């Protein structure tokens, strides 16, 4: 606050009450809130709340959902809320994978749009124009149709060295699974290995921090990252030697008309993730382009002047700075991925929205299910925002 003397105001005691700012403020808000309250009251009164309650969610589901991964729920004995949580788990998987892939696609295409190679820049522009200006719903159903019709049926499965299988029932890839330890220890032994890895990781991070601090103090280059990676590799090797091989790689096999073992990426999941990735990737590409273009031209010139290669210029100078500017917009796009994942409804993917409508169709209670849906999406959105805020704080911690 400044130390200047306060300007001479008219004596509040002599101003009529109606013209006082405080009174005005309270009056306006009072009227506004009263009107809002009346509208709210009308809304609540219009709703049919006679059977409002969430008890129906604990009744047996009576249906089974597909595309389960790491869970096995049959639906006859499990409750509706369990089925809903299976749907939430499916949504989370799709959203997470789509966010990672969309970021990758977005950065690559965004940089490509600014490429000095005319063809590459034009191709990137075409990509953005096509995927950004067509409805996501249609994109997803097109991907699904292409996967169903384009991929071979399981009888003619495409077998890549008994390692990867491709058919219109999905792509099966090898996947690590827990197995017995060196001394024939049981499954839970894997947990100890994971704990050991976490401990080693913590030690490595500590080493890195120490060396970085030292680096800052002395100005000598101490290769903090390389040291940390070395420590982690050594620790992992030692724990691996002591605890044996607690993880084995499962190769997919075909049993009849199904895949067994390995990990299966189903075409429904693939279509949803492809759609979300391309659509969101096109938007992120525009954000990346805008952020790079907003940088002063001197940055590129300076990078060239000190003799960085094109790749170094991009990864060391341009992208780190552009990142600061693009994180808020990119966060918005991530939130959109979360919301747009509800379009799984158009393909045969049992995400939370579809499971919710099935439950609603069996039990009624549209209003309650609506609350459940909205709150779930908001919680996921909140989690994404929280992670991105942490990232944003880290990126903008040092002022340039």
């Amino acid at each position, binding site marked *: 606050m400044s130390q200047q003397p306060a300007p001479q105001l008219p004596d*509040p*005691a002599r101003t009529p*009450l109606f013209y*006082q*700012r*405080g*009174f005005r*403020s*309270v009056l306006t*808000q*009072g009227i506004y*809130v*009263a009107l*809002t*309250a*009346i509208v*709210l*009251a*009308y809304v*609540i*009164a*219009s709703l*049919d*709340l*006679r059977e409002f309650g969430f008890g129906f969610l604990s009744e047996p589901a*009576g*249906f*089974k*959902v*597909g595309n389960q991964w790491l869970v096995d729920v*049959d*639906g*006859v004995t499990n409750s509706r809320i369990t089925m809903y949580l299976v749907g939430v788990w499916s949504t989370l998987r799709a959203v997470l994978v789509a966010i990672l892939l969309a970021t990758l696609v977005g950065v690559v295409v965004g940089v490509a749009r600014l490429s000095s190679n005319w063809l590459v820049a034009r191709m990137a522009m075409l990509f953005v124009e096509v995927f950004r200006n067509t409805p996501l719903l249609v994109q997803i159903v097109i991907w699904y*149709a292409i996967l*169903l*019709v384009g991929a071979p*049926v*399981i*009888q003619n499965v495409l077998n890549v060295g008994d390692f990867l299988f491709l058919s*219109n*029932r999905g792509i099966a890839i090898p996947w690590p699974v827990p197995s017995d330890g060196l001394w024939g220890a049981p499954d839970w032994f894997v947990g100890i290995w994971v704990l050991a890895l976490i401990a080693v990781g913590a030690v490595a991070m500590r080493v890195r921090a120490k060396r970085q601090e030292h680096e800052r103090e002395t100005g000598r280059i101490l290769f903090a990252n390389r040291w940390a990676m070395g420590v982690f590799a050594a620790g992992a090797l030692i724990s691996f030697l002591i605890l044996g091989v607690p993880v084995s790689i499962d190769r997919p096999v075909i*049993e*009849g*008309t*199904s895949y067994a073992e390995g990990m299966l990426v189903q075409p*429904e999941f693939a279509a949803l993730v492809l759609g979300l990735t391309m659509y969101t990737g096109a938007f992120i590409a525009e954000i990346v382009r805008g952020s790079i273009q907003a940088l002063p031209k001197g940055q590129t010139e300076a990078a060239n002047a000190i003799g960085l290669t094109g790749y170094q210029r991009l990864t060391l100078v341009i992208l780190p700075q552009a990142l600061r500017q693009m994180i808020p917009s990119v966060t918005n796009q991530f939130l959109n991925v979360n919301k747009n994942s509800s379009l799984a409804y*158009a*393909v*045969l*993917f*049992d995400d939370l929205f*579809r499971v919710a*409508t*099935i439950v*609603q*169709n*069996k*039990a*009624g209670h*549209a209003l309650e299910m609506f609350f459940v849906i909205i709150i779930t999406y908001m919680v996921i959105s909140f989690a994404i925002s929280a992670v991105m805020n942490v990232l944003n704080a880290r990126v903008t911690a040092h002022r340039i």
Partner: protein
Amino acid sequence: MHRSLLRKYGSSWRTGAIVTLVAILGALALVACTSSDEQDSAAGRGNTVQAVKDSGVLKCGVKQTQPLFGFREPDGTVSGFDVEFCKAIQAALGDGVGLELVDASDASTRFELLNDGEIDVLIRTTTITASRDRELGVDFAQTTFYTGQGFAVHADSGINATSDMGGRTICVQSGTTTEQNLADHFTDLGLDFTPLGGGDQETQDAFVAGRCDVWTADQSNLASRIGVLDNASDFVILGELISKEPLAPGVRDYDSEWKDVVNWVVHGLIAAEELGITRANVASMAANPPNTTVARLLGVSFEGGEVSTLGFDSVNAQFIQRAIAAVGNYGEIYANTVGDAVPRACSLNALASEDKSNCPPGTGGIQYALPYR
């Protein structure tokens, strides 16, 4: 209010909090005051017969993607077995009532459409079940079509019965009774399966493309859809049925009069077949009824006697006659829409009174009209 207090807190967050709190309390008070009469009016959904007559439009929820039952044609119109019953009810309500065919293809939202008044009657291959009757607030009229849950497989798959389906991928429409039957049946068999659930059309496409080994739905649905495919011979519909699926028109609970009209239009069309009244001869039959039963059904006097209205005053006694004149009797509707795609002879949908001597043992019709008197 004290002026210094006002100056101090005029636009601070505390004022906001207090004002908001007061508002919420006020809203709750208002709700408490108004909710009692609101809920009373919500209990009785009113009189649909009168409402339809007043608005001049009957809103009938039908499928738009199932050949033979409810299907959208290239010119935008919808036709099929279920649609004929919509037209019959429209005709029964009298002149000046138009028909609006609302898309109820999505199985997951159909009952809400009914409950929210988006449609007045749901005629969309919907199975009568206790939970729908009770929990979802749907009232069902007479069954229009009897079928059961069947299975279609690829001809070269080597699957002959549900016991062969362990571990297979099964396409099933979400939000249907078939979805639940499937889970129950495989639990009983002690077999595991992978469901692939979604919309009606999507599941068919997935099955045809070979995404799933088995496609389950009402057997009539399977027959009607596979029958029209170019490569129909690549698929086999198994004889095994795992459930009873009586498909019936649904109306809202607590509207007895409307349910009676819908119910007796269906019975009336079946009765017309039993009595030999057709679309072609209904006018002459009405002019000169051969017996009292026909006269009562058509709502005309028999040899100068009184007309029996049976209390159907709101639609007047000739409502069944109008329905028959509009779409024909039950047999005609069946022949004109479903036809030979799902053979009627010796199926459950044949009249109970049909000659069963040519039918295999254990088959034969059960469709018959309740007495209209």
